[in-house]
Each structure stands twice: as structure tokens, then as C-alpha cells.
């Protein structure tokens, strides 16, 4: 009797383990924290790219419209890939694109914008990368769609056609 209970218990235990691993293996490998969505934008002070004057997050995101906060750098190749999408989004009246120039040299950043055009209303500087951490970013490029001071979508990596269509749908 005792041995039977033990066997049943063991079988249940191994079935349980099997299902845990089975479910675990089905989970995607890319980790995206759930709590990064629908979160308030961070409060910060940063220097403006053009004139080095200080600006606060409240001043940048004060208007009642959509904002796309894009983290970019001239040395980042995927940023070149996504640039045409940003240029296209730039023409949308519902959306304002804010750039966060990440660990970049000003001279190179100017060159980059001169070559590919400037889709940004404002560009803020992040010389040491700590401002990107405030945003909960992993690297470049990364974009945050913002509405009413809240992050409604976080995009890790460059924009592509699907994401571009999705952003357009969201800001309609």
C-alpha cells in the first residue's frame, strides 16, 4: 500500500515536472518586461543637441499629441535602416518625434542627419547612456510611443514595415 502511494506520488511529480519544462520551452527567449508598458514617462532634465540648453521632460512632452521617443546614434547601423520610416512618420501631424542621441559624437551626429535628413522635433543628448537607462532601454535603436505622458508601446530594435504600420494605426 505504502509503495503504491509512493509510486503514484512519484508519477504525479514527474508529470508535473514534464509540464513545467514543456511550458517553459514554449516561452519566447526574448525577455520583454511587462511592466514597461503603460508606464509613466520618466522625469528628467537633459541638454538639447543644438544649443546645449537644459530642458525638462515636462517641457518636451507637454502637448496633447502622440510622441515617438527614438534612441539613436550615428555609429548605429540599424538606426540607418529605420531612418526612412522615421522620415515618413515625421510627416504625420498627430505625431512628434523626439530624438535621444546616445553616446555619440556631435560632429558625427550632425553628419548623419545631414546625410539622411532630420525627422526629430527636438534632439536631447545622452552622453553617458544614463538617460537611456531612465527610459528602461537596452541599447540603440529603441523607440517609445507616448500618449498623455504614458508609454503605450515600446519597440526594441529598429522600426520595420510591420511596426511602422502598427504605429500609424495607433496614432490615427
Amino acid at each position: 500500500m505504502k509503495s503504491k502511494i509512493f509510486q503514484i506520488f512519484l508519477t504525479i511529480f514527474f508529470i508535473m515536472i514534464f509540464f513545467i519544462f514543456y511550458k517553459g520551452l514554449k516561452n519566447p527567449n526574448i525577455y520583454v518586461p511587462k511592466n514597461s508598458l503603460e508606464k509613466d514617462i520618466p522625469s528628467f532634465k537633459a541638454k538639447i543637441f543644438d544649443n546645449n540648453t537644459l530642458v525638462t521632460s515636462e517641457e518636451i512632452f507637454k502637448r496633447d499629441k502622440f510622441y515617438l521617443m527614438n534612441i539613436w546614434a550615428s555609429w548605429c547601423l540599424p538606426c540607418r535602416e529605420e531612418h526612412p520610416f522615421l522620415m515618413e512618420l515625421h510627416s504625420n501631424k498627430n505625431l512628434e518625434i523626439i530624438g535621444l542621441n546616445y553616446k555619440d559624437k556631435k560632429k558625427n551626429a550632425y553628419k548623419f542627419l545631414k546625410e539622411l535628413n532630420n525627422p526629430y522635433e527636438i534632439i536631447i543628448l545622452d552622453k553617458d547612456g544614463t538617460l537611456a537607462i531612465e527610459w528602461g532601454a537596452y541599447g540603440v535603436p529603441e523607440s517609445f510611443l507616448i500618449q498623455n505622458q504614458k508609454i503605450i508601446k515600446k519597440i526594441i530594435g529598429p522600426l520595420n514595415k510591420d511596426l511602422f504600420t502598427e504605429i500609424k494605426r495607433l496614432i490615427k
Partner: protein
Amino acid sequence: MKSIKYLIIIVFLFSTSLSNAQEKDLQNKITKNLRCLICQGQSVYDSDSDFANSVKLLIEKKLDEGQNEKQIYEYLKNKYGDWILYDPKFDKNTYFLWLMPILLFIIGGAIIVRLFIIKKN
């Protein structure tokens, strides 16, 4: 009088370097407890990636502002979720994670006892 002045300067320099060393130790301790989210199995302390370097700088800034270890962990958890911490706290999402090794140990032990010790007797 002059020697007292020198003594004060030496004590001041010594205490400053001591507090700097303590802050560096604490910074290292914190970064060792944080996972580098873009690396393969490395802590922020071990990694030299852009992400890890920025986190290190941010921690240094936060410590200079007077924040403590717990506040820094809380801040980063708020930004990146539990995953950034190597030591996730014991709550309803992590019960299984914490209890599983104990459970496995007990069951494994019971199997060993049953198979080898009881049978032998």
C-alpha cells in the same frame, strides 16, 4: 601648530579615500547582483557592454545622490522588471522558483532512502 595642520590634512585625505573605497565596494556589490540584460550569462559587473557601463555610471550617480542599495535595486526593478536582479524576491510569482529546489531535494532524498537504505535493510 604646523604639524597639527598636516595631521588634519592627512586625516581628511585618508577619510576621503576610505569613503571612496567603501562606495566603490558597495557599487561593485550592487553591480554583481544585477544581470546584464543584453549579455549571455554575465552580471553588470563582469560586462563591458554599453548597457552595463551605463548602469554602472547610473549606480555611481545614485550613490552620490545618497540612495541606498535597496532603493537602487527597486529603481532598476521598476525600469527592467525582476529579471535584472539575480536574487528575485519571494512573492507569488517566485514561490515555485524558491521552493522547487527544496522540494526536489526532499523527494530525491526520499527516493535514495527508499531505494538504497530501506532495501538494504
